[in-house]
């Protein structure tokens, strides 16, 4: 597979996620696909997590900001946005299985994800670095400390 073919597979994957076309994921991904960053094993578990995202964030949308490929790897810098309008079954490793009642908040997640592609199928998300600051803040999990408010008064009016 060429680098351009691998990048095209990843672009199709993001498009399928945005169009809610889970059937297309069966073509693009290996059945034993593993997401190491979110600790989800198997394609079914990953599709289930996506379904939960759509329930919690009906307008969940992911944009590829940058895509770089070498060998069998494709690195994607992405931005995900959505409004928390539904009940969301969270499965982030740091939070564990929890159901979050809708907050109505608009959230943004950015990150860089490393995918591995073998013989035209996405076999794993090898790693992912996520900036979840806005996500946690909007959902009400974190707040600035007194120290932060004193140091950055303009930011916390």
């Amino acid at each position: 597979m060429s680098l351009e073919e691998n990048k095209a597979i990843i672009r199709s994957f993001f498009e399928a996620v945005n169009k809610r076309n889970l059937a297309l994921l069966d073509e693009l991904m290996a059945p034993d696909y593993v997401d190491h960053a979110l600790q989800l094993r198997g394609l079914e578990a990953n599709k289930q997590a996506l379904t939960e995202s759509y329930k919690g964030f009906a307008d969940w949308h992911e944009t590829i900001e940058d895509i770089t490929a070498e060998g069998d790897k494709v690195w994607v810098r992405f931005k995900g946005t959505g409004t928390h309008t539904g009940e969301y079954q969270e499965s982030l490793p740091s939070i564990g299985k929890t159901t979050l009642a809708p907050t109505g908040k608009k959230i943004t997640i950015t990150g860089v994800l490393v995918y591995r592609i073998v013989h035209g199928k996405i076999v794993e998300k090898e790693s992912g670095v996520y900036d979840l600051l806005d996500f946690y803040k909007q959902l009400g999990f974190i707040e600035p400390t007194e120290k932060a408010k004193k140091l950055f008064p303009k930011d916390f009016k």
Partner: protein
Amino acid sequence: MSLEENKAVIRRLFEAENNRNLAILDELIAPDFIEGRNTPFELRGPEGYKQFVTMLFKGFPDWHETIEDIIAEEDKVCVHLNVTATHTGEWNFLGVTLAPTGKKITYTAVNIWRVVDGKIVERKSVRDLLVFLTQLGLIQPTEKGKKLFPENVK
């Protein structure tokens, strides 16, 4: 420049920074280097970059970055890195001085560098700020947050 040459430029940068050999940054960073254009975090040119890392190393004298993974394509080099540091000095950041907390910092980030004719012209980063800012004592879990992820409460 080949992909391997571009990766070598970035490896040299990490080595120079870890060894506090900032003179090398003048060779490696292009005069028109930019990061975070039009944001409060904007860094321009070798001087801007060196100034930032100088202040960083004052705040964290043992700041060390390890390259966990690196790929390159065209003029880009992507690096997944881990940072370890101890906040034992004053850190001047965005015009605010953060007094030493003594806290150990460990966080992960990805840098996407652009290298043209052997010089670094741009960097974009995604950082695990949740971990970093918690470790510095700038953010904390809310009551709701504590209930949801009790293991993370440090």
